């Protein structure tokens, strides 16, 4: 039993699945890390992603092009983040509550839209919805292991990893990243340095909206070409967690996202053994707690205390 678990856990297909499942988490997390670093408590990932899922298929349905779908997704992502920004920055509402309200209504709104536009409940599936097609790298064909893990994915999967590098460079090599980090640590100081704090907060928020929306597009247009109610299934929260655990550092976030993706992949392969799925499904969430726990071990002093 243990042996077959190990075997399954280490097969190329598990890693290939990890590679793909990491994509939606990475997009959201890379877009959101600036927002997080700028000191904004934003939990609306789930909402942006779900809206984008719906509008992506709508765009693709109307035009037959996944790229238009992507644009529609990004458009709605921007719109939602503008709503968030208006509430949070202009009307100074509590951001946690705005996030909750957006998340909780996203399911209702998209479902209602689905009923109104497509006249179905549950899921929308239609031939006119076109997904991205996988890219085949001839070069990789000759290397068997890499081929099965990395080859034949849609462009977004590769882009998500490019995003990590891009986010890292922006965060640590550009004035923008430096300023965002400064704002997160001492917004008043940044303000006195003549930095338009509001502007930077807005930009980082819009980045979050844009890229979390790409995650949503990935979910619907990566081959399944369909939208179903609540299809984000908690991925938004995983984005948020990986940013928080990775403390906004894109490289650390990548590690955390891969861990989540890997544990999701495990759920799928271990299902073939007769381990109850409910138990396996807990893995990603227990993994978060364990990662945090091991991360926090260094703070352990033997007694309960709160650092002040």
């Amino acid at each position, binding site marked *: 039993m243990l042996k077959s678990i190990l075997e399954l856990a280490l097969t190329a297909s598990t890693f290939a699945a990890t590679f793909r499942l990491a994509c939606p988490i990475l997009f959201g997390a890379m877009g959101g890390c600036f927002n997080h670093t700028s000191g904004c408590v934003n939990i609306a990932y789930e909402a942006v992603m779900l809206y984008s899922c719906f509008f992506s298929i709508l765009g693709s349905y109307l035009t037959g092009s996944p790229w238009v779908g992507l644009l529609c997704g990004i458009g709605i992502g921007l719109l939602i983040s503008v709503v968030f920004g208006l*509430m949070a920055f202009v*009307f*100074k*509402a*509590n951001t*946690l*509550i*705005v996030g*909750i*309200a*957006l*998340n*909780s*209504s996203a399911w*209702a*709104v998209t*479902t*209602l839209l689905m*009923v*109104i536009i497509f006249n179905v409940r549950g899921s929308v599936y239609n031939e006119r919805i076109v997904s991205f097609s996988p890219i085949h790298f001839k070069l990789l064909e000759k290397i068997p292991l890499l081929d099965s893990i990395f080859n034949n994915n849609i462009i977004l999967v590769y882009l998500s990893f490019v995003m990590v590098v891009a986010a890292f460079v922006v965060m640590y090599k550009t004035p923008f990243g430096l300023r965002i980090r400064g704002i997160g640590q001492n917004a008043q100081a940044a303000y006195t340095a003549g930095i338009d704090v509001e502007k930077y907060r807005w930009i980082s928020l819009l980045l979050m909206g844009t890229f979390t929306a790409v995650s949503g597009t990935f979910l619907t247009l990566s081959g399944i070409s369909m939208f179903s109610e609540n299809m984000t299934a*908690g991925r938004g*929260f995983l984005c*948020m*967690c990986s940013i*928080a*655990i990775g403390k906004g550092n894109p490289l650390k976030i990548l590690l955390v996202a891969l861990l989540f993706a890997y544990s999701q992949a495990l759920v799928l392969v271990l299902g073939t053994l007769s381990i*109850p799925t*409910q*138990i396996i*499904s*807990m893995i990603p*969430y*227990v993994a*978060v*707690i364990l990662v*945090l*726990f091991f*991360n*926090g*071990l260094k*703070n*352990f002093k033997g*007694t*309960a*205390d*709160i*650092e*002040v």
Partner: protein
Amino acid sequence: MKNKLFSFRVKKLGKDLAQNDRLIINALKYGISIVLFLLCGSVLILLQGQSPIAALEAIFQGAFGNKMAIGNTLRWTAPCIMTGAAAIVAFKAGVSNLGIAGQVTIGGFLAGLIGAFYELPPLAHITLIIVVAGVAGLLWSVVPAILRLFFNINEFITSLMLNYVANFLTQYLTQQVLAGGLDSWGYVNMEATPTVLSSAVLPDLIHGTSATLAVPIALIVAIAIAFLYKYTIQGYELKQVGENLKFAKVGGVKVVKQFLIIFLLSGFISGMCGGIEVIGTYKKFNTGFADTMGWDGISIARIAELNPIALIFVSFIWAALKAGAMQMERVISVNRLTVQIVQYLFVLFVSVDYEGIYLRAKERRAKKQYRKEMESVA
């Protein structure tokens, strides 16, 4: 009035400009929110080709139209108050307990078990269930508490993740362990534990409706919390711990203990809520019944501005909307999701910082006035 602080406040009331401002701010806040709420709701209903007036009437009918409707509204009020109270305890003291749903789930599950498998005289049975459910919720909240206190790990994420764990764990226990494993075919409804014994059922508050004793229990909880924060030393310390931990620590407050109390109290109330829901409404534990309860609770608590007494009223309105939405769907062809949408729109509208906006506007006006005066002098 006996004490000076109060007489001081009372004396000021009426004359005090700040008091006046507060009134205006609250009027603005609820006025604008309700108007926007009605407006958005009407647009959504019109979009579905129905009359907003009819919808409103249906909602009102469903919430207060008859004994049954009032019972329904009250029935929903109870869990709203309980989860809201759990959120207030946590958030007022600076603890981001996002794990309310998980604690409700665990409490509900244990209530389902004890209700179905232990036999006891009615009163003892119900008491035992409520206490055990509370303790279960409390224990579930111990995990983020320990991680926070011993390892300095923020509870924001751990408590959120534990919701999923609680959900899957109870699913596993219900569907696989209790149902006797995959290959049995014993129960009719696999998503739930067996129905609780009649001795475990929470008696009705209004006979023939779904309002049970859960309502007074929830009221007691809310009032107790209000009392705790307003009049007790314990509540004073909790509040200070929440607002400035270092200040409290220097002042000699046992912060670790208080922090733990916050977690445990919040968890206990959540767990109790789960137990009461199960033996009051569902009569069995349904997997995933608490999915949205945590978020609802936090939203309601925030609308009530973390004030336990306001919480009671907000919960009542929230519940009325919920009960009314069902009637609306029955009577006219408006999807009940509409109500869910406007409910959260309302949350958005009230969360706006009207106080800040008002004060800024006021200051601007005062300055304009001054400038005008200066100009007219010059």
